[in-house]
């Protein structure tokens, strides 16, 4: 069964003369348990697709289906129990005045969980942060630790589909390796489906089964990662990207 199905998605920003057509007729589907990558350069519209799925960017037209159900324009609460997102910059995605305990506790509370204390501790363990981090504030954490907290927050409602928006591009390479390993483990342990946006082909090659290459808001090619590894891109732009990243 497909976890996520997107058909003819268009997203516009701005009005009248300044209107930008950020995503043009994007269509793809992500199977349950799959890890799907969206690759492109800045401004190619890859992040916009994620924001459109979550309702953070209003869609122009097109259809988004999650688990076979069309997603209504105003996302209902249960939607966020299925779909969660991890943002690019861990320095910007945590509230500067909220401790880790508050961040996770509030998330759990909003999703109607009762045994919040136990779950907070469980989440911290899941993402490889010890209990000693529980009452710290974001400014007391390193970038990698913050991103772990952000991942714990996304995991809190026990989602099935995780949208990853360049989850490691703001981190050092050694920390990137830790976070990518963590994400791979979590996917296995929690049977998650990933939709991952990245500008780094090697990261997508490592994490994903299939990927779509985007350019100027359009998906120019969808291929298997094995094809990517064999350098068998068909579209000239994907070939160009491949050349640049090897």
């Amino acid at each position, binding site marked *: 069964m497909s976890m996520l199905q997107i058909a003819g998605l268009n997203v516009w920003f701005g009005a009248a003369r300044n209107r930008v057509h950020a995503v043009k007729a994007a269509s793809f589907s992500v199977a349950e348990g799959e890890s799907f990558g969206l690759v492109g350069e800045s401004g190619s519209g890859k992040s916009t697709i994620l924001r459109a799925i979550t309702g953070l960017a209003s869609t122009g037209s097109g259809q988004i289906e999650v688990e076979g159900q069309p997603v209504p324009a105003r996302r209902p609460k249960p939607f966020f129990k299925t779909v969660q997102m991890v943002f690019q910059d861990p320095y910007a995605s945590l509230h500067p005045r909220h401790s880790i305990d508050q961040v996770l506790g509030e998330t759990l509370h909003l999703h109607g969980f009762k045994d919040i204390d136990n779950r907070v501790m469980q989440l911290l363990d899941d993402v490889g942060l010890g209990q000693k981090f529980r009452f710290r504030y974001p400014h007391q954490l390193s970038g990698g630790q913050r991103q772990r907290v952000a991942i714990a927050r996304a995991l809190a409602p026990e989602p099935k589909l995780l949208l990853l928006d360049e989850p490691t591009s703001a981190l050092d*390479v*050694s920390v990137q390796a*830790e976070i990518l390993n963590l994400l791979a483990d979590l996917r296995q342990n929690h049977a998650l489906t990933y939709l991952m946006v990245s500008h780094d082909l*090697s990261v997508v*090659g490592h994490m994903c089964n299939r990927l779509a290459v985007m350019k100027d808001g359009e998906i120019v090619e969808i291929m298997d990662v094995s094809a990517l590894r064999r350098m068998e891109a068909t579209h000239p732009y994907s070939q*160009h990207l491949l050349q640049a990243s*090897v």
Partner: protein
Amino acid sequence: MDTLLDVENLWVKFPTRQGLFDAVRGVSFSLGRERLGIVGESGSGKSMTGRAILRLIRPPGIVEADHIKLGDDNLLAKSEKEMRAVRGQRISMVMQDPKFSLNPVMTIGDQIIEAYRLHSAASKSKAHAKSLEMLRAVSIRDAERVMRAYPHEMSGGMGQRIMIAMMLIPNPEILIADEPTSALDVSVQRQVLDIMDRLVKERGMGLIFISHDLNLVADFCDRVLIMYAGRVVEVCEADKLHEATHPYTQGLLNSLPRLDMPTDRLEVLERDPAWSEVPSVSGRA
């Protein structure tokens, strides 16, 4: 090879509530007419090293060194006024994000002309001609139009080329580039680096290239200093970077995912506390 810059035992310290924090600990290196890479992770002190050379560390930060010699002049002995003549004139710096380095309310042409006239008593028309020539030198095709444009009308890659053009106008001896391409897309990165490379070679300048990207540095530089916790832990020829011996360098290289060598798990860097105890390796050529 003649030495353009020689740094001996450089320390950068910041007072904190827990006492002095050493951002750079006893770094020594020299720079000839070459491309010297400084790599390390965030917090390794690589950017601080670049800034300390130009004495751009703001108080309460403290810069200490036995000497920072530019030719025969010790930069540490210079007054702030003399330093201003060094900055831009003899050593230029290109920062990570061109958006923050260009004045948003001045046209690009005016900024380049101003930068040029600050360092030489050229007439306006001569400065204009020189600016056009510089923009063409960084492969900007419609230089006339770019001269009239404002920074926000430029893309990131374009902005960075303009910055490079601006920094090279006074013909400095040394260019310090601090993550000049990190804000750019991969395909643009290459172009900007090629331009920088060509100009540096043509003019026989020394280049200090500060980056977190090992592969980029391995490709682009002649010699590499690897920094960890404020110290240089290893120095090697750039083309032999992949044969580096220090466990930190190896760890960094191995933690990168690679398209040609798929693995289930990436290698995670195990940090040995002893690395930050060993004295800094000398980066003299």
